[in-house]
């Protein structure tokens, strides 16, 4: 029963998020849009903060699955990183309403922690890719790249459209970070 309610709510979350801004979130409004009784919501999640934590975990799980699916079979290298980054940005854009909620919910420590853990995971994976490419200080480069990728996602979310100049700047950073003459000499 609980799992049915979770599935029903998660599959409707994108639609709910386009209709209810974060500041107006309430159990009654979510249940009204999702078409479920408030008692079911309370039994499954208890309250809105717990629901948002679950929404975040679902969002992160789906974005990871998307990236894995899109990059599956791709040759390691810069193109695979760009492919993964593009799919991350695409998923964020397709679920902009949900991401609006999650950005607003960062004041909740556990939501903030979930976001930090996701960034750490992405940084670890990307650091390994950049190390394999022979980049200087790959872990540092990966950490900065993930911060920049999130800035592109946030900027595109605010403007609700792709921002090619920002993406070009991101690809330029990816193509060149850890390759400058001083860094090669230091290495």
């Amino acid at each position, binding site marked *: 029963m609980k799992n049915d309610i979770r599935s029903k709510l998660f599959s409707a979350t994108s639609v709910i998020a386009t209709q209810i801004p974060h500041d107006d979130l309430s159990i009654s409004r979510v249940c009204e849009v999702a078409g479920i009784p408030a008692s079911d919501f309370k039994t499954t999640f208890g309250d809105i903060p717990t629901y948002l934590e679950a929404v975040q975990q679902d969002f992160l799980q789906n974005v990871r699955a998307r990236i894995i699916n899109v990059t599956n079979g791709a040759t390691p290298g810069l193109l695979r990183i760009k492919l993964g980054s593009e799919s991350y940005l695409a998923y964020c854009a397709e679920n902009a309403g949900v991401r609006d909620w999650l950005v607003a919910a960062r004041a909740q420590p556990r939501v903030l922690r979930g976001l930090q853990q996701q960034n750490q995971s992405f940084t670890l994976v990307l650091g390994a890719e950049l190390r394999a490419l022979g980049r200087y200080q790959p872990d540092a480069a990966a950490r900065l790249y993930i911060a920049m990728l999130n800035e592109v996602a946030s900027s595109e979310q605010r403007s609700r459209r792709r921002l090619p100049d920002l993406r070009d700047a991101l690809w330029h950073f990816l193509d060149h*970070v850890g390759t400058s003459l001083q860094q090669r000499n230091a290495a």
Partner: protein
Amino acid sequence: MHDAEQIRRKLSRAARRLVDQTGAAVTAADLAAAATLPPATIGQVYGDFETLLCELLGQMHDEVRDLIANLTLNMPAGRSRLKLAVDAYLQALFERPALRALASRLRFHPQGAQLIRQRVHGFNLLLQMELKNIGWRQPDALARLATAAIIEIGLAEAEAGHPLPELRETLLNYFDTESR
């Protein structure tokens, strides 16, 4: 000087002293005691305690901005000036735990969040100008991304409790790459 202005200055100085000494966990009662004023004075002068803290945060940010401006004032435009400004900004943030703590406390407060956005935007414009000066292609786009990277470095250094040269070098050396 009017009494109200004197009281405002007294509160502001006491708040700065307290935040510098004890961090951002300061309370209105602490401040009133430190300023030897009745607690209700804060509300009368500032409206509420958070507004006073926001004003203080703005002052601390402006001090960092002025420090960078003075450091780079007589340098010719170029990569060296850009890199010095970024490194000095990171160092200034690292050496001001009270500023970081106050920003962290106020980042979800509407007025605090707006103030932080304004200061970040100001820094972003400064970076844009420097990148334009060195002929960077799409300086506005890189300025936005570099600002995000600088915030990330600042957070990482605060968490680590010491500067992280690898992160700083990685960003600063990237500015040496060809942008065309």
